[in-house]
């Protein structure tokens, strides 16, 4: 039933600009993702994958169409409620890591917990646990510029996990990583999905897509294929 779907977008379009220079990044996309799914999104460059992902992560709003997340219409939420959703329900992982510069790994991981109003001690405990999970306990006090790309992405994953979100959205998380680091990150996604978390990952690599159980193909702002692969 409709109410069951964790993510439910209905005929969403996204247009940048207006008039002759308008770019139609999404031309009517409908998609339902149930809790616990592991979805890969593929498509050529400029097809609208990131645009879709940003809308799913409540970082951007659709030009038209509705987005129902966990039973509530996102467009109806106040700004503060949207912030709460971003902080508690969704963990977002970026291709470019997006760690806050000049701030230690553990402080970066603590950040979403701070915004979720956790106490200092509790925050520290959870952040340390998240870092342990990604195997970076020994790098807790390193700043982003003292970490390798793979390590930075693992900190970013720890940060996305810290609040225990039900949904993990990753936009080309392994795009900047080598073979070995990619393996590590994918292994983590497998575990998280096995834990019951919903994972949506954008990728250009077949090897990454192969881990997912459902593959969605996007082309020119439309979903052109949607199949269960495993």
């Amino acid at each position, binding site marked *: 039933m409709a109410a069951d779907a964790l993510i439910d977008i209905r005929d969403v379009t996204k247009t940048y600009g207006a008039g002759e220079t308008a770019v139609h990044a999404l031309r009517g996309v409908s998609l339902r993702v149930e809790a616990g799914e592991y979805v890969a999104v593929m498509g050529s460059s400029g097809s609208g994958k990131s645009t879709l992902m*940003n809308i799913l*992560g*409540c*970082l*951007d*709003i659709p030009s038209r169409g509705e987005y129902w997340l966990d039973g509530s219409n996102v467009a109806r939420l106040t*700004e*503060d409620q949207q*912030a*709460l959703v*971003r*902080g*508690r329900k969704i963990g*977002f992982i*970026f291709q470019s890591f*997006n*760690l*806050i*510069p*000049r*701030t230690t790994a553990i402080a970066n991981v603590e*950040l*979403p917990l*701070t*915004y*979720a*109003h956790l106490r200092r001690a509790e925050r520290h405990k959870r952040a340390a646990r998240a870092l342990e999970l990604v195997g970076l306990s020994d790098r807790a006090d390193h700043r982003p510029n003292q970490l390798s790309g793979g390590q930075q992405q693992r900190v970013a994953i720890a*940060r996305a996990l810290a*609040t225990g979100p039900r949904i993990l959205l990753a936009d080309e998380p392994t795009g900047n990583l080598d073979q070995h680091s990619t393996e590590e990150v994918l292994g983590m996604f497998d575990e998280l999905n096995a834990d019951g978390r919903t994972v949506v990952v954008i990728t250009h690599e077949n090897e990454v897509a192969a881990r997912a159980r459902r593959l969605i193909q996007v082309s020119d702002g439309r979903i052109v294929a949607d199949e269960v692969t495993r």
Partner: protein
Amino acid sequence: MSPRDLFGAALRGLGANKLRSLLTVLGVSIGVGAVIVLVAVGNGSGKAVQDRLEAMGTNLLSVSTTGGGGGFQRGQAGPSAQQYSLTLEDASALADKRLAPDVASAAPVMTSSGTATNGDVSYTVNQVIGTTPSYLPATNTPVEIGQSFTQQDVDSSQRVILLGQTAATELFTRPAAAVGQTIKLGAVDFVVLGVLASKDSTGFSDPNATAIVPISTLRATQAGYGSLNQIVVQAADKDRVDVAEAEVTELLTARHQVPADETSPFRITNSAQILQTSQDTAKTFTALLATVAAISLVVGGIGVTNIMLVTVTERTREIGIRKALGARRRTILGQFLIEATLLSLIGGAVGVGAALIVSRFQLAGVQPVLVPSSIALALGVSAAVGLFFGSMPAHRAAGLRPIDALRHE
């Protein structure tokens, strides 16, 4: 986010670019310091003038005449200017206890100027005052060296003179050497009886460039038998100044037969009025200085805005990340507002500290007197400046959609 977390984030933000924060703080502290110091200077100069005027005595009335009583057209009958001229007899009538019970003393004053010579040394005395001995206590002009002349000297037109500090110094180098010497004023010899105590200037002219002689002598040797310039009246008591003033007006009106329908031709100023006028002047002066200082405070505030704009622009991506992680608008707003306010407040504190030190020294010949409310005001304004000027860029940052902030380059 707890206040402590917000505060920590703001401090880290400021620490990220220490030099820039420091320069901004400097801008604000100069503004705040300028307000406090300049207001203190204005206040100090006002106080100084007030002190000097108070030393002059507050129970003093100065009576002069405006001449005729209004505009008379040629050929029309009317009182001549002569009719209202002040005379020596007016002065003695005013000094009469039976006629004016609240007048303690009345000294007639005639002024002239002349060149004094001591052998080869000559000096132009701007103000040669002819008067009676009661002038000296009434105007708070004590004789420092030697002695004053007496009523007998006046009665017998003795050629004796009291020199002001400047006049004595110019003529004799050492004022003490003047006493007992003979100088020439114009063509007439005068014996120096004493040297007056030094007086602080209350205006542009040097109050020590004077000489005082018995009024009878001045009339006989210098100024002829014209009318008096003024009569200096001392009220019996500080609280009786108004009564004394009324008595003086009444007595003079009667003596000169001024018609009842005419405005009084006598102008009476009391020292309280002069005090009031100079206090008003001092207030204007202080306000002027405060305005200049306020401008520099605003300039400091613009510095804060500028830095906050740069900071916000630089850290837009960071704002995007924070919003993606669940930061609310007011959290972002709070962080930047605290940063801006801290800049202003630290600047304010430094400014107050510097002002406290600077105002212990004389500035432009004035000993600044701190106005406590100006310190509170400057600090309050600097905090307000931080909030007001910081809020604009902070609002801009906090209002961004996460994706727009993240895409910022």
